[in-house]
């Protein structure tokens, strides 16, 4: 069994690297497809032809695509993601600044979505087809059908404008200067250093964006859990457990939960990456200096280097997420490993 696990993981890793390489080619090609002269974009439209030409030579834009790809890949391995045409700073630095902000959002949103979503789903399935179920389903629906930006704006209007309970922008209040960065996640850093004022302030700033982002995840996971539990409730082993008189709570938590969370867990990895990239509207509205907004600006401003870097990083996250999730799912539902064995 253990050997099979390791082989499985290694296989997945190798495949992922292959996928990453294919992704890098796609990304490179996509960036080159974007119409417009990158030199002109970087130096402004008033720059003289002479200056533009110098820039092109410096950046190898005059060389054929394959050569450019080689230099780009080379730089990638040295950690050089190029210079953003918009901020004129190394993309790596820019991303280093913005990525932790969105990671913080995404992690909290995921926790929110998962915990509350699974709870709603389990309760819904347990009391399925009664009013509790319908209530839960409607709550979940509103989560799914409300776009995150609509909720963000409503939330900001209600909680920040009308009732001044929550702050409306940024990660912490301006008077709190938070300097020492350990992980980049303000709440975690503050906790590590024992600075509770900063922690609570950052937490306050997190509430609205996190709920806006987590709503869709919560609703989806709620619904998936509900359907999954509902499905499994009809399975033979549950019915036999019931007829043996096993108490309700034991059935719910020990027999049903693990296989039912399977589909939820399998989308967790994707969820994280989705939030990472899809948070841009929420970040825009709350002026959150995050990765998604950075990526979105990169796309709108045709900042080639930034776009490539953003898509690659998101790709890495997704693939990593998938691998981790596959491993966890493998533990929860051994059928996958067994299938591997059978077909070989």
């Amino acid at each position, binding site marked *: 069994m253990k050997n099979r696990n390791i082989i499985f993981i290694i296989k997945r890793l190798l*495949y*992922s690297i*292959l*996928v*990453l390489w*294919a*992704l890098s080619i*796609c990304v490179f090609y*996509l960036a080159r*497809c*974007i*119409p417009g002269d990158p030199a002109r974009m970087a130096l402004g439209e008033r720059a003289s032809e002479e200056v533009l030409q110098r820039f092109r030579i410096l950046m190898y834009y005059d060389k054929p695509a394959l050569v450019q790809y080689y230099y780009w890949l080379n730089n990638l391995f040295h950690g050089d993601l190029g210079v953003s045409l918009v901020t004129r700073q190394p993309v790596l630095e820019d991303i280093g600044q913005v990525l932790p902000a969105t990671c913080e959002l995404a992690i909290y949103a995921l926790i929110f979505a998962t915990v509350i979503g699974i709870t709603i789903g389990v309760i819904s399935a347990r009391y*399925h*087809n009664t009013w509790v179920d*319908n209530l839960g*389903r*409607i709550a979940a*629906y*509103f989560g*799914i*059908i*409300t*776009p995150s*930006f*609509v909720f963000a*704006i409503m939330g900001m*209007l209600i909680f920040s*404008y009308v009732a001044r309970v929550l702050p409306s922008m940024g990660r912490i209040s301006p008077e709190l200067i938070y300097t020492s960065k350990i992980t980049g996640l303000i709440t975690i850093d503050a906790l590590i250093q024992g600075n509770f004022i900063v922690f609570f302030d950052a937490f306050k700033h997190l509430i609205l964006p996190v709920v806006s982002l987590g709503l869709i995840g919560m609703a989806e996971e709620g*619904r998936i859990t509900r*359907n999954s539990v*509902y*499905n499994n*409730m*009809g399975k033979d082993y549950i019915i036999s457990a019931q007829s043996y008189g096993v108490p309700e709570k034991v059935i719910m938590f020990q027999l049903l939960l693990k296989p039912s969370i399977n589909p939820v867990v399998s989308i967790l990895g*994707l969820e994280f*990456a*989705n939030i*990472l*990239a*899809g948070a*841009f*509207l929420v970040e825009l509205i709350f002026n959150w200096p995050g990765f998604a907004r950075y*990526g*979105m600006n990169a*796309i*709108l401003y*045709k900042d080639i280097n930034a*776009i490539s870097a*953003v*898509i690659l990083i*998101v*790709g890495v996250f*997704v*693939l990593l997420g*998938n691998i981790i999730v596959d491993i966890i799912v493998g533990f929860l539902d051994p*059928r996958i490993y067994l*299938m591997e064995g*059978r*077909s*070989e």
Partner: protein
Amino acid sequence: MKKTIFSQILYSEKWGNLKRKWYKFSRNPLSIIGLIIVSIILFFAVFAPFLTVHPEAVSKYVNFSEAKQLPSLRYPFGTDIYGRDIFTRVIYAFRISLLMSGVVILIAAPIGVILGVIAGYFYNKWISILIMRTTDVFLSIPPLILALSICSILPRNLLTTMMALSLLWWTWYCRMLYGLVTSIRGEFFIKSAELIGAGKLHILFNEIIPNCLSVIITKMTLDVGAIILIGSSLSFVGFGAQPPTPDLGGMIASGVQYLPDAWWMSVFPSINLLVLVLGFNLLGDGIYDMLTVGRG
């Protein structure tokens, strides 16, 4: 039509099954509500020109003197900042939304399903690996970013946005079917069909796909809402239908800036968007309940 023993049993039970399933479907009030909502919306969408009083609201027309009117008898949902009747625009926007979802699903689903089934059935053969790795590449970029990137290269209009969405949507079907098929291909009825000597094509189309239909149809119904939502996020940034063509997402995006004063400009399209997506979701869930064997 070639039939195996099993599919013969399936077919003969079909009508009886349907009656039972309809009964099950109708027992849940939410699913009925979903059906009603979807029917109403479809009715409005199809008969839009006959139901609206201000047809110029969707053409090249501005009337600044009538701009920002409160909802009234003349303008049930009020007017927007260009003086166009919002009610008319919402009805026509249903058409656009349904068109977008319809086109994307009709392109993405068949491609995705066929590729997914092939990949799942021929597991571990080179074709499966090829398909799934390609899918992985597409799936490793979150849909919004991919859609944005593609849309930013192409000229901005509804057609290109639909193409961009189709390009990334088939991967969801592919992956879902792949997962499904890999778990059913070990089931007895498949093995028996293989033993009997049924051809690969037959197995794929007559054994596997009919058993996945419930999931596929559910997903298609739910996808209508999802596509409309992604479309609205894209409209927020200016892609999708271009003025003066109305689009729910675009209307919300432009209306949101005028909160809280001219609330009707964003509230009505939002409510209609929610109702539209809600309807399809309720319907989709009802279909799912109807087609799966649960505890009921």
